[in-house]
């Protein structure tokens, strides 16, 4: 393959409003690279589905332009865009068999009969549904319907496939195995995928990059690692993964560390991400797994907490403690450390490094 375009799909200053009063998508700039698996992640109403629908052509941007493979596509109707799509409820044609469902996009393209058969066989094999050709959609389980929907979106070899919360209706186990399957399909075909979900686990598992949406804007666009480890603002920090927070005011800031006085009067040493001067209000974010219990090493932050609740979770135990006035401070204790005797009301010494504790916007 020749060199891949980094701006295979390009959103340029795209706004979208339905009612003329509120913008659902605000000034969206987004480049999607060829062959990439990009996830639009966000709570409901954040504009991620609208973004996808604009790309598919079912919604028109109120302002701005979308480019697909270098061409502006605002005025191209959906059926001429050649973009595959997997819908939330699969949208399989209930009156057509699996084979006919898959043949539909090929017949529209006037592919000849033998090639249709060949391509359908190949695609069904890819989603491990060989032998299901003559079933009707109603005779398939949810997971199988899901695979047919994916197969149907891929069978006509689109360069771009959009997926709108395709796993939302499946149960947890099936959803997880489908995540791996979709990831493998993407890797083997090299097709560009834009995936919409509100499930962060799904996003982290499958994506090359994740665009976190909130309030019609992309809050952060980066790989799963950076997103989890280095969130740029408190929305991303709280939306991705579990998060303990303190609020406070910056007292002193110097060379990669900031002293912040919390609302309870204690001072925490933190990593200044979104604060730059003393006197600023800040929300400090700290992942539960970055907190050490009974720290013996040299850590900048060491405090004593009181256990409020112990919740058994199988592979780990969650401990809710009161720390520096925060009654909802969560710790994750792996089950390997079962020698640790925990009781509600006990005092527990905790500590963490200033690097892991990020001072973000308030």
């Amino acid at each position, binding site marked *: 393959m020749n060199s891949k375009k980094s701006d295979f799909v390009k959103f340029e200053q795209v706004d979208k409003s339905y009612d003329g009063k509120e913008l659902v998508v605000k000034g969206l700039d987004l480049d999607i690279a060829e062959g990439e698996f990009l996830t639009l992640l966000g709570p409901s109403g954040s504009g991620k589905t609208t973004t996808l629908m604009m790309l598919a*052509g079912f919604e028109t941007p109120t302002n701005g332009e979308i480019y697909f493979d270098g061409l502006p596509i605002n005025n191209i109707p959906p059926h001429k865009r050649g973009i595959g*799509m997997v819908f939330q409820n699969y949208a399989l044609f209930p009156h057509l068999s699996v084979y006919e469902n898959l043949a539909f*996009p090929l017949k529209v393209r006037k592919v000849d009969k033998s090639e249709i058969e060949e391509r359908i066989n190949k695609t069904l094999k890819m989603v491990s549904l060989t032998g299901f050709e003559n079933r009707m959609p109603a005779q398939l389980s949810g997971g199988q319907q899901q695979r047919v929907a994916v197969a149907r979106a891929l069978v*006509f070899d689109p360069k771009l496939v959009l997926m709108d919360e395709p796993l939302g209706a499946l149960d947890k186990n099936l959803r997880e195995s489908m995540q791996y399957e979709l990831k493998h399909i993407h890797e083997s075909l090299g097709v560009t995928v834009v995936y919409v979900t509100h499930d962060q686990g799904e996003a982290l598992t499958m994506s090359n990059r994740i665009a976190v949406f909130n309030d019609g804007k992309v809050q952060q666009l980066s790989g799963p690692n950076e997103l989890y480890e280095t969130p740029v603002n408190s929305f991303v920090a709280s939306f991705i993964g579990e998060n303990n927070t303190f609020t406070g005011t910056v007292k002193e800031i110097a060379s990669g560390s900031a002293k912040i006085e919390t609302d309870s009067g204690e001072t925490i040493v933190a990593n200044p991400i979104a604060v730059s001067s003393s006197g600023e209000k800040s929300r400090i974010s700290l992942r539960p797994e970055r907190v050490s219990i009974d720290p013996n090493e040299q850590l900048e932050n060491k405090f004593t907490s009181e256990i409020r609740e112990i919740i058994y979770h199988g592979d780990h135990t969650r401990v809710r403690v009161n720390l520096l006035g925060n009654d909802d401070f969560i710790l994750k204790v792996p089950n390997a450390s079962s020698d640790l005797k925990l009781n509600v009301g006990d005092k527990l010494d905790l500590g963490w490094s200033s690097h892991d504790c990020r001072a973000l916007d308030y």
Partner: protein
Amino acid sequence: MTAEIRTSDGELLSIKLKKVERRRRTTAFLLAAPLLFFIVFTYVIPIFQMLGRSIDNVQMNEFLSETHEVMQTWDGSEMPGEDVTSTFYYELKTAVENKYHGKIATRLNYEKGGFTSLIKKTSRKLENFDENGNFLEQFIDVHKKWGDIEYWLAMKRGTDAYHFRKYLTTFDFEQKFDGSIERIEEKKRINVTLWLRTIFVAVGVTFCCFILAYPISHLLSVLPTRYSNLLMICVLLPFWTSLLVRTSSWMVLLQKQGVLNDTLVSLGIVADESRLELMYNMTGTFIAMTQILLPFMVLPLYSVMKTISPSLMRAATSMGATPFHAFRKIYFPLTYPGISAGSILVFVLAIGYYITPALVGGAKGILISNRIAYHMQQSLDWSLATAMATVLLIAVLVVYWLYNKIVGIDNMRLG
């Protein structure tokens, strides 16, 4: 090796299951029982009585039972003998005494015109008969029609307890006295025309309803609820108005001096002297029936379209189908259950429609049901009326049967 499966208390599973099922079935039956009895007594039994009436001539057979019996030995090739005429004389005499000779006259008149006056005149003169003389001659003396063998043949046939001749009349055929079946003379043929017109109107009205209802049902199914409710009320509004009022308002609109013609004339589209004939013909029947039956098409269509996810059309277009192609291959086939349910509903209602054609149809726009009503109320030939009604019923059942064969009754969605 099939081991018998038993429940924990040792009973055979199959028997136990039946017991439990039986209780459930009894409950279900009891719930349905009141309606079932109501339907049996007010619907099923009357229908069978009606079917019977179309072939039933038992009363007539009893009035002239002995004459009928004696006539069985008469071959009809020449005038009946004294055994027949004398028996008829005595039975007619009894009839006059008990005052049911009028019924005999009416009944026999269905078999052959002229019998009414014949029987009435004969009844008046009966007391002058010489019971020792030749009866046939005395009958002929009273009225020369008694010399016509056809009247005696008609009497033989008209006193059969059961006959199917009304069904022949329904299709403009008659049975000659020699047993051959022929079409009746051309100027009397009316029923076949009416049957054909009824089917044509029913099919046409169904088609017009479909054409009008399909787009509006689609709109109803995609509009947000608050708009669709309002629109739905507009569609259903006619339901809340009396059928008679609605039909009368069509008369106001469609008549020659009516609103529609006045408007067309004042707009200069139609000249005053050539106002459109929109009423008292087929046009009137068509327009009014289409409007009145429209909701029966809209409701099933709407209920089916409501269940079609909009993402199906999106999916089809995302795969490269033009909106028209997506409609033809995806949306339209998915609405078949609604189309077929609506069509069969409208067709069955239209084929038996009565009030509207009676009021706006005129002579050229009446349908078979108006003819049935005519025989029930005017000509009082109930046998013919019920024979026609039976044919109508069978026609509807055939439509259902075809529907079940082609579409399957399970696929019907009425709302």
